[in-house]
């Protein structure tokens, strides 16, 4: 016989007994057993209801097509996240728009207007709500503010707006190439190195033309 703590109410004791029965019943499937030895403490009608729920609540699987489509979508998003992480840290960059910005799906954005969900997905919402500005703006707060303002919320941008960083990396590389080409061109032309001297020369030439 099991002795329960005196602090428990009658309903809590009943609930504990039912819970033990459910543990045994649901694990009986692994042993290929239909039922478990009758526990006299558990109401027989409850036991019958539990067995029927175990047998009659159907388990369904989504279609294979849906499974693979979502797998592809997740893989695409993961690839964008990897790319973003690989080029992270380039703060000053030109914006290079991607065909589908990472997780910038409006329906996903709408989800994050829910502060509870936002809190679950990232603790930064709480930091902003409590006025801890040092920890930066949160994706959810941004989404909520955007939603309140009537705009299209885009909560993932502040956190994973990495396409901008990718753009930064590309821009830096492009600038370096252009710079090298420009220097090479100037060297072959033999143009005056001092821009001030060049300006003075042009000014003098214009003055002579005006006098003539």
């Amino acid at each position, binding site marked *: 016989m099991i002795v329960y703590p005196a602090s428990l109410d009658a309903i809590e004791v009943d609930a504990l007994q039912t819970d033990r029965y459910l543990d045994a019943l649901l694990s009986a499937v692994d042993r290929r057993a239909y039922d478990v030895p009758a526990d006299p403490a558990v109401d027989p009608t409850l036991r019958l209801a539990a067995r029927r729920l175990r047998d009659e609540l159907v388990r369904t699987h989504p279609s294979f097509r849906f499974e693979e489509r979502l797998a592809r979508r997740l893989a695409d998003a993961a690839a964008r996240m990897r790319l973003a992480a690989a080029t992270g840290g380039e703060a000053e960059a030109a914006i290079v728009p991607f065909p589908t910005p990472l997780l910038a799906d409006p329906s996903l954005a*709408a989800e994050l207007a829910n502060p509870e969900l936002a809190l679950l997905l990232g603790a930064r919402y709480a930091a902003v709500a409590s006025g801890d500005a040092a920890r930066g703006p949160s994706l959810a707060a941004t989404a909520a503010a955007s939603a309140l303002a009537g705009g299209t919320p885009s909560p993932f941008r502040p956190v994973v707006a990495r396409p901008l960083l990718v753009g930064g990396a590309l821009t830096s590389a492009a600038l370096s190439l252009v710079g090298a080409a420009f220097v090479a061109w100037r060297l072959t032309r033999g143009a005056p190195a001092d821009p001030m001297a060049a300006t003075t020369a042009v000014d003098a030439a214009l003055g002579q033309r005006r006098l003539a």
Partner: protein
Amino acid sequence: MTIGSAGRVVPLDPDRSLVRAAQADPARFDPLYRKYLAQVYNFAHHELGDHHEAEDVTERTFMLALGALPRFRESAPDDAPPEASTFRVWLFRIARNVIANHRRALRRRPTAPLQAAAGVAGPEDVEGRAVARADASAAWAAVRRLPGDRRRAVVLRFVDEMSTAEIAGVLERSEGAVRVLLHRALRSVARELSAAEADDGSRAGDVRRDAGRDRDSR
């Protein structure tokens, strides 16, 4: 297993290695996705009762989970059971919130599933038949009539086979409260099933009486 700060044996998250791999490289999220796809879909399907809406919610749940995975930590409030901090519980809490949002959106712009307009499912429509079978089940009908958290607790316990501690994590309640929720839910279901059987019995008696009367009149 490991020993917690209070000297309690704390089971490790069985998905820890998969989660760490996915956090290091998002491309390795796929095993977690394959493992929990059906469970999340089932939860959504039982909550919403519509296949397309369940797919929609499942998709959003996994997209949000992937985006937020770098911030996932195995941590739960001090009074919560250790199982409440696993990846599975975290994922189902996302699903629960996405479903709540979805319901709110549906209330704003109510729609009816296509099956309702189409009437009876076609012979090749296995899924439609499964839904029809589920709808016809008295147990399922009784579960659908349960109020919010009782229904969720039953679905998580019987369909997704979660422990009480895990359900407590998903529903953000204490283990004791979840046990009482489940006990009360079972009592309601048992009452409904008894009433349905009594109803069926009396209907069967009526049919037998009618049949006897027909024989007599012939």
